[in-house]
């Protein structure tokens, strides 16, 4: 039996895990812990309580390892599959719709298989998803040990892995969309994990809705592709120019922009940090957000045929990279810094996609997955140690108290900053090289981003681990189950960069020849950024504040996150709200209470208008009819005076009128 025949098993393992959690966890679906008032971050638990919990829920300890095991199985299986070769496996016909005419007039049938495609591109993603997914599962066992809702947590995590695998293994665009939406669902569930906290559920909704806007684009893209090619299967789509192809690629880009948190749909990602930190690491740094990149790489033939959309991609990517990086400069929340950094790095990847360096983008995806996951998990470790504290201003000097965490974070920071020789350096370099070939502006943006990246990462590192501790918590190093994954990831952070050429070869791409100038520039920028950060935050603490005063407007702009959220709020909410009178302001309160940003706001505002029109206009018309029927009843009734003579009068009058009519007619 060919090992590849068992390809379908890869996503099945985590699905099994998820299903198992759902079944078993029915009774402890939500653990009592969470009900007792914890908001998810840990207070000091005395052992007794912990023991108590354990004895009450005997199987609790099993959850994490079980789920991790499923993902590990998946990982091992995919290793086997990847080395067995490339293949396509169709399990069954999933959607089997009706025939319809394609644009070229042929009758084709709307079908989509449930089938998997294993090629280098998906192989890379599968390995990354299962590998990093496994590490994060392991890490979570310890990180979440004191949290309630473990069944739910690990169930959702497994569900996420399942959907992510469906996404990257799908052999057609429709099945890909299943994974695409599925990871959105998992993301919703996990961001809102601490569902008693309003910000968490708000953030979850926001993430889901902003993604949905992209998804709407995806759906439309699907229809275009279907009509152009008559099929959605990757291997059957023969890329050829078509006047409507730009629409398809543009819509695909919109979908990718949503999923990968690019301008203008990026504001959900920082909010998504409301989820547990491992979730941030897994989904909002390493895997899910790169689905956009994956999609564009998958759709590479179409993007190649539509250079104008490519340029737009690059522009969006560059702008996102610079803007997000600049916002990261002033963030105080350690996870927010990393979140903006993620957006910024995703921007770089989009820039690479836009200039046609698909392999470079993918390469950066891989390296970024290593060091960003590592950084998030490290941050998680810090947060864990500080019992939920996330503000950089109350950290400092942790390097001695948490040596393992410090070392791995240090490696990760350097890798992200692009320290020569580490993973980030090489992947970023590939992008910059391609950008240089395409346009100096893009190159400049990339380089500037690199500078900013090095700076804010340096800032993060120095503020967290150097100097004196500014908080008041009892600090302890995290357990092995948390630090070991960190170390495993740092292997990747250090070494992954050296495989650039074989990686490109595997994908069948020819990388741009290395340009020493770019390399040097990139290295210089990285070192400079770190150096400035050192100067600002370690050497001369307070410099930063002075600088901020010096460029106050800029700082304000950055603090306000370039006013994106405010812009959405202003345009969609206040702009309309101010016009209305009192009821609108009442509504405003309701809207503000509602807590959902962005399009949702506008929708609800318009929704209120529609409700109003429904009550007063549509229903009003109906009620008016009913009312006028009733009203007209009265005149008819009041003709009936009760006086016999007025009845007779009407008879005579009618006779007169009728006679008059006949006279007029004959006249």
């Amino acid at each position: 039996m060919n090992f590849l025949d068992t390809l379908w098993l890869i996503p099945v393992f985590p699905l099994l895990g998820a299903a198992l959690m759902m079944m078993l966890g029915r009774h402890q679906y939500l653990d009592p812990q969470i009900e007792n008032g914890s908001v998810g971050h840990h207070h000091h638990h005395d052992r007794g309580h912990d023991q108590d919990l354990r004895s009450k829920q005997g199987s609790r300890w099993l959850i994490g390892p079980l789920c991790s095991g499923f993902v590990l199985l998946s990982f091992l299986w995919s290793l086997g599959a990847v080395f067995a070769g490339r293949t396509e496996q169709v399990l069954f016909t999933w959607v089997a719709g009706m025939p319809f005419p394609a644009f070229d007039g042929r009758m084709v049938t709307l079908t989509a298989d449930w089938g998997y495609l294993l090629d280098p591109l998906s192989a890379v993603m599968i390995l990354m998803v299962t590998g990093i997914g496994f590490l994060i599962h392991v890490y979570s066992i310890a990180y979440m040990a004191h949290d309630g809702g473990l069944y739910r947590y690990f169930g959702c995590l497994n569900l996420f892995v399942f959907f992510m695998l469906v996404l990257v293994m799908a052999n057609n665009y429709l099945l890909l969309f299943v994974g695409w939406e599925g990871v959105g669902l998992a993301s919703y569930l996990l961001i809102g994990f601490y569902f008693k906290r309003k910000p968490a559920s708000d953030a979850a909704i926001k993430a889901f809705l902003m993604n949905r806007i992209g998804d709407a684009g995806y759906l439309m893209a699907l229809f275009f592709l279907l009509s152009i090619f008559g099929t959605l299967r990757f291997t059957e789509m023969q890329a050829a120019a078509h006047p409507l192809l730009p629409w398809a690629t543009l819509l695909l880009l919109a979908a990718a922009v949503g999923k990968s948190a690019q301008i203008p749909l990026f504001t959900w990602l920082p909010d998504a940090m409301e989820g547990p930190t491992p979730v941030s690491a897994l989904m909002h740094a390493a895997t899910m957000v790169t689905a956009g990149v994956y999609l564009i790489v998958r759709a590479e033939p179409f993007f190649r045929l539509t250079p104008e959309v490519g340029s737009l991609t690059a522009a969006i990517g560059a702008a996102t990279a610079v803007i997000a990086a600049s916002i990261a400069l002033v963030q105080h929340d350690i996870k927010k810094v990393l979140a903006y950094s993620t957006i910024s790095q995703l921007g770089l990847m989009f820039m690479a996609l836009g200039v046609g360096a698909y392999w470079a983008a993918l390469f950066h995806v891989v390296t970024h997955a290593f060091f960003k996951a590592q950084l998030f998990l490290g941050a998680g470790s810090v947060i864990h140690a500080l019992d939920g504290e996330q503000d950089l201003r109350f950290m400092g000097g942790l390097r001695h108290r948490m040596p393992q965490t410090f070392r791995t974070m240090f490696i990760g920071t350097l890798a992200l900053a692009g320290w020569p020789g580490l993973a980030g350096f090489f992947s970023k370099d590939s992008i910059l090289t391609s950008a240089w070939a395409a346009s100096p502006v893009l190159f400049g943006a990339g380089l500037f981003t690199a500078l900013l990246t090095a700076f804010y990462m340096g800032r993060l590192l120095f503020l967290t681990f150097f100097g004196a501790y500014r908080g008041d918590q009892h600090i302890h190093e995290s357990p092995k189950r948390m630090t070991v994954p960190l170390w495993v990831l740092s292997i990747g952070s250090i070494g992954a960069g050296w495989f650039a050429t074989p990686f490109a070869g595997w994908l069948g791409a020819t990388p741009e020849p290395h340009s020493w100038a770019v390399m040097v520039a990139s290295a210089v920028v990285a070192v400079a950024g770190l150096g400035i950060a050192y100067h600002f935050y370690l050497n001369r603490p307070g410099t930063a504040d002075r600088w901020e005063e010096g460029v106050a407007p800029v700082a304000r702009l950055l603090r306000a996150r370039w006013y994106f959220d405010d812009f959405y709020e202003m345009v969609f909410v206040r702009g309309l709200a101010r016009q209305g009178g009192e009821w609108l302001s009442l509504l405003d309160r309701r809207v503000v209470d509602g807590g959902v940003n962005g399009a949702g706001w506008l929708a609800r505002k318009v929704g209120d208008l529609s409700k109003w029109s429904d009550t007063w206009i549509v229903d009003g018309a109906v009620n008016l009819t009913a009312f006028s029927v009733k009203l007209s009843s009265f005149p008819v009734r009041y003709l009936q005076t009760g006086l016999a003579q007025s009845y007779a009068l009407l008879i005579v009058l009618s006779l007169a009128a009728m006679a008059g009519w006949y006279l007029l007619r004959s006249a």
Partner: protein
Amino acid sequence: MSHFYTDVDHFALLPAILLAFFGCAVFLFDFLLGERSRRWQLALVLPGLAMTGWHLWKQGQIAPFTAFHGAITIDAFGLFFNWLFLLTAALVALISYRYLEIEEEHQGEYYGLVLMAQAGAYFLAVGTELITIFVGLETMSLSFYVLVGFLRRSRRSNEAALKYLILGAFSSGILAYGFSILYGIAGSTYLSDIAMAVAARPAFDPLTVLAILTVSAGILFKISAAPFHMWAPDAYEGAPTAVTAYLAVGSKIASLALLLRLFLGPLGTAREAWEPLLILAAIASLTVGNLAAVTQTNAKRLLAYSSIAHAGYLLLGLVAGNATGLQGIAIYTGAYVFMTIGAFLVLMAVHGEEIEDLNGFARRHPGYAVPMVVFLLSLAGLPPTAGFLGKYYIFLALIESGRYVLALVGAAYVAVALFYYFRLVRSMFLLPAIEVERPQASSLGLRVALGATGLVTLGAGIYPEPFLQLAMRSLLK
């Protein structure tokens, strides 16, 4: 028998003679036996009706034929309506017994007058000569004037009778004036002669127009079509409920028979002249009847207004002027007999006239409330009830003759009608009772009548074939 009065003549007259005979018998027995006889009067009335029916059936075997030189024509048309009169009278007799006892006006004359009214109506259906028709009409009307005022101690009954009489006599006068013009046109009172004379004139001949005006005013009054409807709500409300039922059904369809006889017979060639008039009357009836009913608080009055609206639908059938329209009228009237009497008899069982009196009725007497829903649905014209078939045919006739707007108007008023009919349902089923139990006027006769009307109303809706065959055969032979 002399040659003035042949066997055929006798045979043609026999049902009316029987009715008159039994009517007189009732008067006589009441006079001779007094109080004691009253329980047995029903036993006199029903056999009388049964014998009448027997003879109607025998007439049906050899119909059509004419008697008295054409003064009476026994044809399918006349027999059909006479069967309806017979059913109506029987049902009314059945439901009246206990009701009159409760009202403490249980007098023998009542049943006699019911039979006399039917005897008068007999001539409206079969009469083909103006004087016969006029005298028949007046016999019926006079009986009704008395019946409406039958509750002598009730001011409302007095008042209703008075208004009905004044206006009825006035309209009879106008009708008689119209008849005199018809006589002037033809020099004869036989409809066949008049038909020829009218046909010889143009449709808009002034004399014809005058005749049409006055005749239609007189008859439209009797079928309570707007704008000659004003007496109806008052008379219906004030009359004893059983009489209201009889008035709403018997008087109306008898006058309808006359309307059809005249307008399809002698005046048929002047259709061009009277059609707009009837269209106006139909629309006005629909409008007035339906709209005024919407806000009524008295159930009898509500049904009175609705009966005005029904007159409108019947007129639409005549306006359509094709065979389907006639079938529609036949089926509509057939259904109308059962559903209207059914609705009134439930009101009698409630023994209350205000809609509020019905509150919570369904909880206490579901056996009456559920049939009432059927009657009301049928009155509104919803399937699967007999009333639907009538409306169906009327609409079909209108569409066949290209009168789409009229069909739409008629259809639109169905919704309005349902609204007020369902106010009664709302009271019975959805609202809680507001007071202690009222005396309930149930009796064996009432229950039998309820069963009969309910079964026919629903049964004819679910499996209408036999009813349609019946109506079709009776009218199209």
